[in-house]
């Protein structure tokens, strides 16, 4: 064999020209530095001052970016299209909400030291068993991860074992999130019915209405998003990531090579659900409310559109898509409230027709042409 091949012996991987991930981490770091600076150091009278409203918006975008990241991991890399990921997001949010409700303590409207207001209102005499422990933050923190993971595991186990794939899988994930929504709407479920949880006072003793707490929450969200991105990237760049590609492109061939396809899918689905759950948990204290509307099927579909718009299969593209679409949503629902849904639908159709690889795909093609 020729000398050339021997020389490239260790060079088994083509060098990737894609530095979008570095750009993304850089921008994220910039946000994490700029937000505290503009809020805390710039005086409120200055035009450059960032209000709590602005922080809340940015925090919301980052949480949605994390949800989009979770979806891209399974959809862009493993071909699993979940149209129910908002369910995991909401469960993480509810776990955080339960902690925040217990944290209110006797400061509620009815002044009950243990029971949250809605339980007093419903004439409940004692705390339901599943509310135990949520007054301890570490326990609540564990639940934000465990509950979405458990649901994803049970659901994924049955769905993937039964070889439910493609559009059928997407449909039952819609049914899942819809069923969760109906359940959480019921008052006797013990999660506040259609009002959900709100009126939070503080988190770990820090006042949720103070700018400083909100800035810290935003920085934590940015760090969590960066960490989740790096974890997802580590997975897709490992051999497991290549097996995921293989499953996406030729599932039965992968099985024939001896890979336990179902167990790969379950693991990756559970991991994705955990990322979505953490995103939801970070979302609730910043937005200040969680209610069953978060489980609405439309939310999951919107999240999939963010990923498609940004460009699936790149991870950072999904995050960019979430931020851009939500920015457009903030703007349009303010300026022309009635056109938002049409704009969203049109965006999805146009992206599907003309930008199969999303905005990131467009940027990559442009930079290659230069």
């Amino acid at each position: 064999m020729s000398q050339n091949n021997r020389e490239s012996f260790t060079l088994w991987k083509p060098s990737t020209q894609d530095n979008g991930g570095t750009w993304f981490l850089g921008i994220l770091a910039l946000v994490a530095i700029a937000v505290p600076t503009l809020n805390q150091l710039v005086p409120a009278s200055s035009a450059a001052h960032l209000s709590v409203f602005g922080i809340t918006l940015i925090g919301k975008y980052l949480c949605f970016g994390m949800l989009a990241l979770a979806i891209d991991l399974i959809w862009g890399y493993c071909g699993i299209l979940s149209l129910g990921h908002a369910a995991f997001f909401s469960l993480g949010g509810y776990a955080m909400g339960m902690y925040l409700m217990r944290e209110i303590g006797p400061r509620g409207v009815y002044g009950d030291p243990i029971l949250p207001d809605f339980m007093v209102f419903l004439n409940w005499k004692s705390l339901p068993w599943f509310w135990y422990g949520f007054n301890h933050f570490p326990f609540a923190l564990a639940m934000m991860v465990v509950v979405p993971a458990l649901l994803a595991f049970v659901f994924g186990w049955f769905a993937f074992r039964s070889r439910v794939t493609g559009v059928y899988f997407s449909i039952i994930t819609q049914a899942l999130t819809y069923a969760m929504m109906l359940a959480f709407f019921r008052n006797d479920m013990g999660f506040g019915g259609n009002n959900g949880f709100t009126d939070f006072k503080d988190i770990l003793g820090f006042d949720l209405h103070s700018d400083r707490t909100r800035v810290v929450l935003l920085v934590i969200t940015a760090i969590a998003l960066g960490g989740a991105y790096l974890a997802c990237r580590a997975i897709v760049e490992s051999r497991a990531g290549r097996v995921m590609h293989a499953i996406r492109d030729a599932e039965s061939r992968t099985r024939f090579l001896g890979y336990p396809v179902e167990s790969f899918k379950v693991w990756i689905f559970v991991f994705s659900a955990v990322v979505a759950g953490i995103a939801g948990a970070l979302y609730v204290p910043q937005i200040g409310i969680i209610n069953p509307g978060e489980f609405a099927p439309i939310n999951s579909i919107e999240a999939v559109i963010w990923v498609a718009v940004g460009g699936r299969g790149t991870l950072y593209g999904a995050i960019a898509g979430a931020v851009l679409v939500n920015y457009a949503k903030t703007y349009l629902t303010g300026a022309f409230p009635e056109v938002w849904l049409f704009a969203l639908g049109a965006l999805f159709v146009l992206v599907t027709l003309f930008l199969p690889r999303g905005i990131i795909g467009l940027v990559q093609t442009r930079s290659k042409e230069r």
Partner: protein
Amino acid sequence: MSARDKRLSLEDVTVSFDGFKALNALTLAVDPGEMLCIIGPNGAGKTTMMDVITGKTRPHSGTAQFGSDIDLLKLSEPEIVAVGIGRKFQKPTVFERLTVFENLELALAGTRSFLKTLRARISAPQQERIEEVLEIIGLSNQRFSLGKILAHGQKQWLEIGMLLMQNPELLLVDEPVAGMTPQEIERTSELLRSLAGDHSVVVVEHDMSFVRSIAKRVAVLHEGHVIAEGDMDKVQNDPRVIEVYLGV
């Protein structure tokens, strides 16, 4: 030679589908390192025979033995792959959006569980094995090419390479040159001949000139059993073979 020294021996294997005997008391043996070609008209039972060996179809009677002591009829499909029988299907299915190198990496024997593949690294011997197979299948210069841009013939070779990664003792190859250009056929014939010796190779093929170019021994299947066996010249002059093929 007794049955013990054979790589693979099928004896009196019968498979019937609703009364139709796809295999009828088929008896066939493959020596270690031998290249055997199987030819026969459509419906002769060639694919069914492959299915029996790989555990996809269970025979109604007969025995299938691998090496001196492995009863293939007691093993599941993945177990049969694990004892060293690799099968290449007619239609090549390589992973289109992975590179040639990555295709071979995934075919490496060993690591299969999710948590292990998360941390898996290619060891030096594995790297060497991949390089070796890249050379055997002649795709060293395409190692970074995505599966989808390979030519049809190259996909077939890559698929054979993926089988080789698992170091099978017996390779079953179904119609390897269907749809290939003459140059590709030439190259495939070289490739398969180079594999015989280290591996036993069983090739099912319609292309007579290709069979002539690779096989020392040919078996003709008809209506589920072997009607002639031997070198190409002997088989082609066998009156029964002429009758079956030409309908005389």
